[in-house]
């Protein structure tokens, strides 16, 4: 019964969180955003004291049910492990193993150190919810979107508006690789040895283990009823049961209740047993390649990018040359925009400052998947690798949208309203006359000014005395909020003639 309850609850959490990470319409976030907010690390980053106390109390009372029910990566491993045990002869594939203390606490100390000194990429690499977020966002979301696009095509044929297409694009090759490696490592570990990751690498698991050792309720072996059949031991995916010593390692037990269900003799019971701490001691091997394997590199190559931008600028003038006046001539080619080098990264409306944002963000990618305007993507910069940043090649931060601020579980993006958004200044637009079509093509434009939601762009005559002088934009610094409408809608390609640089500290006017 307990096991069934666990499975039902875990399924709900797992499906809801995963779907939320996939959903680009913003529908599910309304109902399930709280599930992200009760994830342990985001709650810590958000200084969400209520949630932290709740989770600690939960663990003190029930043990590490968090790992079995709330953590999506934990549940994923359970699914893999379950499938693995369906293989012939693999039903009882576990053996008791001792706690790999040096690795477990070593990783934990490293993690805490990174957290304190602000090495967020390492934090994101190790944290379970972040890992699941990047796996879903990088690997599953494209499949989900392609599937959606298929439905969108069908519904377009049927003249229905039930589905609309979503552009699938590679946001960060580095994050994609890390996500793939994470998925492979986690899957292999779970397939072979169950909850190895949770009990050797996962810093959240280790943190909770400090409390679960003292939990009030826990699975206890009744030595009188136990016939030493080892069934529970061989089925314990946490390798926490040692029948020889009739002990359970409560620092590693994730309260899956499989042992209780599986014991034919009723010797295993989930019961009040405060203070009866016991541990297994038998030795067994445990893989340690996780940390090594997941330390992947950025994947972007600054030299290559510089080359691309250079080449792209060289071709701009070519592409925009007004073509021979011919009628009925189809479409002019449109060059894709390239990402400019920004001195300061642009972080979302609702973040306090660049530093604060990157300190709190756990890189769970929830905001990336929630962003309907293709603005947020994982950074490729090493110092904030996988943590999101904004850029405006494919869209801009539209004035009515505050989706990322609504979903962020870590408090890196605080909740704001669309009205408040126009008073947040996250960046500042700068004009580059040489690239502007007014200069290169000698045409009227003003598209930036026409679309600035705060009216921060003033069109001024190049030659104030001439009556028919063309006008170029000038940015009113006090009004510019950095939303990127100007940059995105600038006709200069591939590099816009008006571009936003982030502000270190976001100003609220």
């Amino acid at each position, binding site marked *: 019964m307990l096991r069934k309850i666990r499975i039902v609850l875990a399924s709900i959490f797992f499906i809801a969180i995963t779907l939320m990470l996939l959903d680009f319409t913003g529908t599910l976030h309304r109902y399930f955003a709280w599930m992200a907010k009760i994830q342990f690390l985001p709650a810590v980053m958000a200084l969400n004291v209520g949630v932290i106390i709740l989770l600690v109390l939960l663990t003190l009372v029930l043990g590490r049910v968090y790992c079995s029910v709330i953590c999506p990566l934990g549940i994923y491993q359970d699914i893999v492990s379950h499938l693995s045990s369906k293989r012939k002869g693999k039903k009882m594939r576990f053996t008791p193993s001792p706690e790999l203390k040096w690795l477990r606490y070593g990783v934990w100390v490293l993690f805490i150190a990174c957290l304190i000194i602000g090495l967020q990429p390492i934090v994101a690499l190790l944290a379970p919810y972040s890992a699941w977020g990047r796996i879903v966002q990088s690997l599953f979301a494209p499949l989900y979107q392609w599937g959606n696009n298929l439905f969108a095509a069908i519904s377009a044929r049927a003249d229905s508006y039930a589905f609309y297409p979503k552009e699938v694009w590679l946001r960060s090759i580095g994050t994609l690789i890390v996500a793939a490696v994470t998925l492979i490592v986690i899957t292999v570990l779970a397939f072979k040895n169950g909850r190895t990751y949770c009990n050797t690498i996962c810093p959240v698991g280790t943190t909770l283990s400090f409390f679960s050792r003292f939990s009030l309720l826990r699975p206890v072996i009744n030595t009188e009823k136990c016939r030493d059949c080892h069934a529970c031991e061989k089925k314990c995916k946490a390798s926490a049961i040692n029948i020889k010593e009739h002990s359970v390692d409560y620092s590693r037990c994730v309260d899956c209740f499989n042992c209780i269900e599986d014991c034919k003799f009723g010797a295993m019971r989930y019961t009040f047993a405060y203070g009866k701490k016991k541990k297994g001691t038998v030795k067994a091997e445990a893989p340690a390649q996780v940390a090594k394997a997941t330390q992947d590199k950025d994947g972007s190559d600054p030299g290559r990018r510089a080359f691309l931008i250079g080449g792209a600028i060289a071709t701009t003038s070519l592409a925009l040359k007004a073509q021979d006046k011919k009628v009925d001539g189809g479409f002019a080619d*449109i060059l894709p925009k390239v990402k400019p080098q920004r001195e300061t990264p642009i972080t979302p409306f609702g973040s306090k400052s660049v530093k604060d944002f990157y300190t709190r963000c756990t890189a769970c990618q929830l905001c990336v998947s929630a962003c309907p305007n293709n603005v947020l993507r994982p950074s490729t910069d090493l110092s904030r690798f996988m943590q999101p940043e904004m850029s405006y090649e494919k869209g801009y931060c539209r004035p009515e949208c505050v989706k990322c601020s609504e979903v962020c579980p870590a408090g890196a993006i605080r909740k704001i309203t669309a009205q408040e958004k126009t008073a947040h200044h996250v960046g500042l637009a700068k004009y580059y006359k040489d690239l502007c079509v007014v200069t290169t093509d000698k045409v009227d434009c003003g598209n930036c000014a026409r679309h600035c939601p705060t009216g921060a762009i003033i069109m001024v005559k190049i030659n104030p005395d001439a009556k028919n002088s063309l006008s170029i934009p000038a940015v009113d610094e006090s009004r510019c909020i950095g939303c990127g409408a100007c940059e995105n809608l600038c006709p200069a390609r591939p590099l816009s003639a008006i571009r936003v640089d982030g502000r270190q500290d976001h100003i609220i006017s």
Partner: protein
Amino acid sequence: MENKDISRRDFLRKASEGAVALGGAALVGSCASPSSPDGASSTKSASVNEGMEYRTNNHNGDKVSLLGYGCMRWQMKKDKDGKDIVDQDSVNELVDRALEGGVNYFDTSPAYLQGQSEKAAGIALSRHPRKSYFLATKLSNFSNFSEEASLKMYRNSFVQMQTDYFDYYLLHALGGGGYPQFVRRYEDNGLMDFLLKEREAGRIRQLGFSFHGNQESFDQFIALHDKYHWDFVQIQMNYVDWRHADGIRNVNAEYLYEELDKREIPIVVMEPLQGGRLSRVPEGIAAMMKGRDPERSIASWAFRFVGSYPRILTALSGMTYMEHLRENLDTFTGFVPLSKDDLEFLEEMATLMQEYPTVNCNDCKYCMPCPYGIDIPGIFRHYNDLVNEGKVAQKGTEKYRKLRREYLLSYNRAIPTLRQADHCIGCRHCVPECPQSIDIPSELHRIDSYVESLRRDTK
């Protein structure tokens, strides 16, 4: 079923022949044209189909089908390099069916379909005897007026269309840029003298021009009739443009018609359907048309309108799909002109249509390519369709949220985001190209700010 149909049509036809003074039978063929040269092709009669309505060219006796084929709107598909190419198979099929149905006038230009129309028409038509149809093409020297470039364009048309003579040859789109532009394009470079000689030599059987412009320039071109003798003129005519042209850069078709009729110059009609807009009229107007005659298509009203005027030699329709062709053959086979009442009714409809905020775009694509990549006709078409269907989301109305979603999604469906109106920078390159004299940038900006207001309104 079919028999019944025909007998009904025959009945109507007979009934109308006597009654309607406007009918096609009234044409007088004064075969006084000095311009039919070259024994081989003088007073020729292209293939004729019993049911199709034919008009006789009073200059040379050509029996031309009242339905002409405009080769500007054929289907394009992507080749393996992603380039747009004409779907030749469908063109062949359409041309075969059209000839079979009695259509014998095919109008093209070196500029149509990204320059591929002449070749496609040539391929399809050369599979049939050259004498079974009339070929019309144009000197579309818009970008380069030099003698060399213009002659090259002229000669290339023969190659593309696999022929050694043109039945009808037009100076393309006079009126744009006014009279001075005509002088630059055709007189200064000696092309006019050259074309007159070509007419004498029989390589051009009939010489004329197509017109988009104001009244002043039209009068000037017509005054040249004495000098050049225009064998025919192609004008934009339909029941809306009859009396509701903007008057600034377009003239009411009624005026054009009367001026040409006076001089007994045969008229070829373009845009009888306003680029398909008159087949997709606002809901209320469609209801009235169907109420008046439930069995006739909306488009047929527009065709019957132009066909009801006797000086019309042929009305060009850019039939993209077989359905268009079939429907038009239906209209023009056993053609029934409109009664006086009907004409008044259409004038009433045209007046009503002025109330709708649609953009007067005929999808001719002369504005394209926009140097900044905007799909100008696509945006207008999407907007017009929704206006006509009454699906423009108005704030405060009951269906607002639903219509808002539909508008935005259908907009994204119809136009790739990078080609939408928010990318129009207002460079105004397109403005002089538009034969309908639409202020394209301001219309695009108007649509853009409407779309922007919808986007921002997320409850």
